[in-house]
């Protein structure tokens, strides 16, 4: 998957499961203020990403530091590359 494909899959998965408008979703969009998610949604965000990319997320610290959609993109791309490298 290219970075762009990953970004698109992140956005479309979140849009569907959280009923968000794709048009509102840019890398700078903050997930808590702009998209209106809160700490309760974190677990569901993890579930959506795990389902979309078929990996398990165990990096609690990294997840807690996520503020923008761009942070999520970077996290997923990093995770995907790690797995591809067999790490």
């Amino acid at each position, binding site marked *: 998957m290219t970075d762009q494909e990953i970004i698109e899959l992140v956005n479309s998965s979140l849009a*569907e*499961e*959280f*009923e968000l408008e794709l048009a509102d979703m840019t890398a700078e969009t903050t997930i808590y203020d702009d998209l209106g998610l809160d700490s*309760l*949604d974190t*677990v*569901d965000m*993890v*579930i*959506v990403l795990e389902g979309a990319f078929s990996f*398990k997320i*165990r990096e*609690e610290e990294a997840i*807690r530091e996520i503020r923008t959609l761009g942070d999520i993109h970077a996290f997923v791309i990093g995770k995907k590359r790690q797995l591809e490298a067999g790490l």
Partner: protein
Amino acid sequence: MTYDYVVIGGGASGMTAALILAKGGCRVALVEKSPRLAPVLRGFSRQGLHFDTGFHYTGGLGEGETLALCLDYLGISPGIETVAYRQDGFDLFRCDRSKFEFAFPVGYGRIRQSLCESFPGEEGAIDAYLEKVRTVCRALPYLSLDADWDLASSMQNLHGASLQDVLEGLTDNRTLRGLLMQHCLLYGVVPAEVSFAQHAAIMGPYYESVSGIRGGGRNLVSAFETSLNQHGVDLYCGSAARSLEFSAAGQIRALVLDNGQSLSCKACVASIHPQHLLEMVPDSCFRPVYRKRLRALEDTSSAFMLYAISDAPVEALKGANLFLAQALEDDAVFEAQSIKQSPMYIAASGYRAEDGAHQGLIGICPTPDSVTRKWAATKRGSRGEDYEAFKGEAMQRMLRRIEDALPEIRGQLTCVEGATPLTFGDYGNTPRGALYGVKHRIGQYNPMPRTRVDNLFFSGQAVAAPGLMGAVLSGFLTCGHILGHDRIREELKRCR
């Protein structure tokens, strides 16, 4: 009149939540589908003897221990009398194939000693295991009132190593590993699926003290009823909760019951199977991903349960339970499909009111709910002759297995009642008759007390842990979210 809180579900967690909120100064209504509160915890009588279904024994009721403090706080303690189990062996494990036996004693010191005697050379693994259990219990905020409150640890618990992985890392002795896994019958999740932390949080309190309650679950429910009455909680029994009504601002404003009655309220605690709550609210109140998560929640196993009267009290079950396993070394037994191969739990029951002795027993055998699925659409009392024949045969098989394990009472037992997955579904109000409701397993995200709807909360074993202690603690956890954890934990500390 408008209630501050309507609590849906009159089991141990719902009764607990209702009491805490009422003690906190709220006007509370408690709604239970059955004609009386807590049918599973209460049990029932046959031929003048009382049989327990949902409650047999627990940890945490020793002086100053967690569950005892909770019951003090709730005003329950004056109404009950605890009965200590046998200190030298509260659970007797017996293996059909190898004839290996082990009496699990009460107290970390005694457990260590007994395990070391049965498994020479395994002292290191035994010490490490017991220390790991203790460490988990010390760190949990309600289990240990002095622990730091750190919600972040909850995710770690879910995702930590499994019980099986931890035991395999500690020892190569399969019998020892198998023995320490057998208690998973008390929470209904197989060792490969349950996190070590969840196992430890449930078993730790049993390692410190083991108690029953004189007169069984019925006396416990009756003490709850007295306290609910004293605290002015209004009970609505005999009609199920049907739907929640919302204000234009998306807040709950009433609960409508099956009988058409509407209870106006400012907030709601749902102490029911999470999937049942979905049927009571419009789709729009939760996000699709959350609804999907709740719908996908896996339940614990269901079970067959036998209730039998014996000609005389069963000596082997005085102050102790019996766990039967085909082979301790074989993890597959936890998912066995037959009564002969499945593990079995046997406890004294059939309480005689006149002298407090038990003149019977109960046996529980985990079984998947698929065994009764073809009758799922039938109604209790009219499931048909083929169902009755199926249930009768299952009870006879359980009876024979118990007689094989306790030959001294062969021919003295009479089956007076039986339960199947459908029975558990009816009385526990779970969709598939799960013995312990929703599973707590690694990778499954159970609901938290808070939901997206500001004035709607979850409670019950799905949010904390199963068993009396799990259910009661879930009530405290949920009400802690509502009234403030510091306040509730401080008040609990004052009960010490």
